[in-house]
């Protein structure tokens, strides 16, 4: 059975078509790397899967039915562009806010809820963040908290929107490894958006490239090719393979790295210190 299916789907944001007449299917248990230039619709696609953005045309199904808001089987790590807010709230309460967070009433946690949160925090190596206020942690540490949160409640589908942003290289590897283990143990489906393909090559089953309103889903060998990427990026792209790595160039400029550098620039704001 397919985890996600798109048939002739068009997604529009603010009157602009981000994805046009797109069809593909993602099987249950697949690890999909989602790539493409900024603004190609990675976040938009995830929002549609979450049921936050109804397709303008076509049909989109998640686990065989129309996406619905608040689907408990989806774990979501939103892409956070904003500066870490100067919140004087400890990491534990930050995570705990998402446990039944949509229900009305007082935010009371059962002992089982507390145990689950502690276990998940430990699993992503964020146990020490539980007692520290958000205002005192770095962007990378917040990213770890958000990952823990996405894994809470054993979701069957993980939508991870740029989980590697503002993490240092070593921890990026650890995050990929962690997500892979989690997904394998539970046969969970993963959509993992990133700026660089190479880090994910050893992990992903297939890659979904988005760009120019179109999508290409396939193995790295099928999709990471000059003709496919040139169409998606809307510019002349060369793909160079060396040593198991793939380099995507446009007129001598490394496309993916250029995007990434741009994000790093944003990421620094995340290391916002508390006065």
């Amino acid at each position, binding site marked *: 059975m397919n985890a996600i299916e798109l048939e002739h789907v068009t997604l529009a944001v603010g009157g602009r078509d981000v994805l046009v007449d797109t069809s593909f299917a993602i099987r249950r248990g697949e690890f999909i790397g989602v790539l493409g230039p900024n603004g190609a619709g990675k976040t938009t696609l995830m*929002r549609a899967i*979450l049921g*936050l953005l109804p397709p303008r045309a076509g049909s989109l199904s998640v686990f065989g039915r129309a996406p619905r*808001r*608040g689907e408990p089987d*989806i774990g*979501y790590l*939103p892409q*956070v562009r904003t500066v870490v*807010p100067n*919140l*004087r*709230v*400890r990491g*534990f*309460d*930050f995570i705990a*806010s*998402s446990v*039944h*967070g*949509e*229900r*009305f*009433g*007082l*935010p009371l946690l059962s002992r089982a809820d507390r145990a689950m949160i502690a276990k998940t925090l430990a699993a992503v190596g964020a146990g020490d963040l539980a*007692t*520290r*206020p958000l205002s005192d942690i770095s962007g990378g540490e917040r990213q770890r908290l958000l990952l823990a*949160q996405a894994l809470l409640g054993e979701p069957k589908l993980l939508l991870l929107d740029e989980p590697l942003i503002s993490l240092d290289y070593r921890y990026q590897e650890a995050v990929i490894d962690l997500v892979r283990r989690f997904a394998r143990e539970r046969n969970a489906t993963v959509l993992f958006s990133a700026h660089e393909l190479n880090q994910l090559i050893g992990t992903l089953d297939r890659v979904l490239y988005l760009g120019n309103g179109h999508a290409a889903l396939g193995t790295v060998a099928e999709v990471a090719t000059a003709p496919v990427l040139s169409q998606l990026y809307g510019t002349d792209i060369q793909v160079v393979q060396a040593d198991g790595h793939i380099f995507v160039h446009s007129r001598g400029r490394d496309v993916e790295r250029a995007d990434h550098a741009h994000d790093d620039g944003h990421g620094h704001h995340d290391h916002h210190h508390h*006065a």
Partner: protein
Amino acid sequence: MRMMTVTGTTTITTMLEYEFMRNAFAAAGIAAVVSGLVGYFLVLRGQTFAGHALSHIGFAGATGAMLIGLAPLWGLVGFTVAAGVGIGLLGERISGRDVAIGVVLALALGLGLLFLHYYTAFATQATALLFGNVLAVDRSTIATLVGLGAVTLAGLAAIMRPLIFATLQPELAEAKGVRLRFIGMAFLAIVALAVSESAQIVGILLVFALMVGPPATAQQLVTGLWAGMLLAAIIALAEAWFGIAVAYYTDWPVSFCIASLSALAYFLTYLRFIR
């Protein structure tokens, strides 16, 4: 030493022999606890400016009510709640929100002045509205404060869980089905009620002394949600009661004493953490 204790106890007993003092302590206690609890979320959400605007809008409501022969409290409640809902309806992400609020705030104060202009009979009423007059509170006002406070806290308890979720992680809360706009609107209506309570004690211009000072102080000291809420209420209560006592012995205005204690507590904790 022994003598001093006895003297101290005697003076407190003397102070409480006056009915207006007992009423003042009761009214200030109720308003302080409500303000501390609601203010905790106001500070957490970074919406203190909206709270400030609500109190000024309340001034127009209160003077308008007096002009047509109603109790100022109900004008205050009606106008602030309507304004709270209005600001909430504008949504969380309206750019230039501060500007819009600032313009409305100035308009409201101007309207209040216009109403006063036609209602010259009680100029002292205006001072009481602006700076509070807790020593003039009577039994029936206390009953009103209890009722209003109960409604405010019941409302806060009802939306607390989604409110925390929406405050800490708006993107995820939205994905999980929390109606951000509704929660934002309901919360500002609750803030409006708390502002109306607080204005009875310290006046419209000084509601921040009870609604922002104590929660901000509490957030410097503790980072747990429950601990923060509880401490905010306790600090507000302590500042209100201690402020009245200081006013009793010094003959300074009560609102000045409470505002000074609020500022003192905040800056002491701030200095402690600035290093």
